[in-house]
């Protein structure tokens, strides 16, 4: 996995950037929906399964590599989303209240 990180830095950075944008854009004062609702649950389950498959090296050859890349890109995207939302919250909280 470390080799993958070293081999795909630009691509992972791009995933992180997309995550930042999406996290910023979707951050709002609206009440947060319960996290078990919607796609996030199934996405988390699929990610965990993917990790297990990758760890057990069940997919051969290129499929194995592509799975690892998919897991890394997904992870960087999610991290980007959280960081994007957090940045927006921080920056909006510091703005002075308009007159």
């Amino acid at each position, binding site marked *: 996995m470390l080799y993958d990180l070293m081999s795909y830095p630009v691509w992972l950075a791009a995933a992180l950037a997309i995550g930042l944008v999406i996290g910023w854009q979707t951050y709002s004062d609206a009440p*947060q929906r319960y996290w078990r609702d919607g796609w996030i649950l199934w996405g988390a389950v699929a990610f965990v399964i993917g990790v297990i498959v990758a760890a057990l090296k069940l997919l051969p050859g290129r499929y194995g590599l592509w799975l690892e890349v998919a897991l890394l890109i997904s992870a960087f*995207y999610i991290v980007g989303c959280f960081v994007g939302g957090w940045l927006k919250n921080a920056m909006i909280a510091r703005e002075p209240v308009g007159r």
Partner: protein
Amino acid sequence: MHQPGKWWVGLLPIAALWVLANGVRTESVEADLASRAQAVLTEAPEIASEMKATALGRDVRLEGLEFADGDGTRMGQAVDRANGVRLVDWRLQRVLPARPFEFAATRVGDELRLTGSVPTPAIRGKVRAMAKDNAAGKSVVDALAYATGAPNGFESIVAYGLGEAAKLDGGSFGIVDTGYSISGAAGSFEIYDAAIAATRSLPAGLQLARAEILPPEIKPYRWDASSDGKSVTLQGLAPSDAIRAEIAATATRLFAGRQVVNRMRLARGGPTGDFVRATTSALTELAKLADGETTMTDGELSIRGHGSASVTNDVVTASVRASLPEPFKVGVIDVIAPYAFKIAKGGGRVVLTGFAPNDAARSDLANAAKAAFLGEPIENELASRSDAPARFVDALKALFPSLARLASGSLTSDDTVFNVEGLAIYEKAADQIKLELGRALVRGFKLGVVTIGVIPPPPVLEVNQCQPALDGLLAKGRILFETGSANLSKESLALLDHLIEVVRRCREASIEVAGHTDSQGTPENNLDLSQRRAEAVTSYIGESGVDTTRISSAGYGETKPVASNDTPEGRAQNRRIEFVVK
């Protein structure tokens, strides 16, 4: 508040990013990992030089050859430890033993081609290096395959074979297990001898399977044989071992009892045609010579030497022309044959054999013999040969009167040396004949062995047989004297000796030696002359040892002619000596 439920909107670009990343980076990642795996293999060339790594994703596959059990496992585990490699799969082919184990280094055109099997990459590398060292400018083509089962000392065997083959033109060598083969053409006798010797002392463990080493090509191609009468020496070149042996066997057969020294060497470049038949022809002629040599240079045969009476230059030339096969050519034939001649008296005839310079000389000698040998039948078997010693005929004719005195015997000539053997009629005649032969010799000729004995005492003749025997002899010739004297001519001594033989046999007979003359001169002188001549004959008979008490002499002068005195022929008949038994 974070809104994870809305983050799905980023999945589409993320998916696109993933597809794009895979499309752009997969092959380069695979190439990088294959390179890393190959680097691991390279660090162990002794076992992994024939292994190759490929990558699919982050999985590496090892393919190639495994020279020993466990090599694949070891290398697989080593590659598995390389950074980035996820899985390693090795599918190596185990190198199998070759039965039989073959290896060959063959020179073809400008290439030195290595074929067959080699046990390991390391040895292969050494073999290639050795081949390059021995290639002499030719390019080395490695068509070897790996196999185990090489004979012990494979490297040293290859080094030895490459070294030996490099000495030969087109030199090649090979092994089948421990059977060693070598072929090629030697550039010189030294190289050929060394190469042949090398095949007889191969390195330990090798056996010679085949050696096809061609001898050097030599121009001009010369073959010789020489004979000194005691031994024959074969020298020069022969095209093959078999032909050399055949020539030596032929020499042994033709020169039976004589030593055969075989110094022939093998070489290529000989003339086309049947070399064995040509040399057999040459040796056959050489065997006829007393001594000599024969040389065949590029198919042209020459013979020189000394022949014999029957082996002359012409005889040898004709014989070699008849027997020499095409396309061989007859060169110089220079056979020196002794100028032989023989005259043999015996059995009531005289036989002439050998040579005379020409037909006229043949007739001359036959006529001289006829006159000297009291008209005995002459068998003239002389052949013409022009290279007679000077005055050969004169020299022979001068000896005939003395030879004619022999009861039997012969004269043989070997160029200018005359050998005489025979039996005289009585002891004193033997001594006289020896002396006369010496005196009669023509300048330039000499006597060799002269052996003259005496015939045993002849049987006694009855008295009544004596007169016919004496008359018979006198009918063949006449007793001659020097003109007007009582000195016996040399030509008459043969007749006289034969008359003496009859007189000795006629022990009981009283014999009168009667002298007669023609009518020339005065009767008194003629009477005296006839008396003296009759006495001279009687005296000659007495000197031979015959008891002369029963022999008388009488001179009748011209009183008892037997023919007319008017003609020369008649007068010649009247001048005579008669033997009259009383």
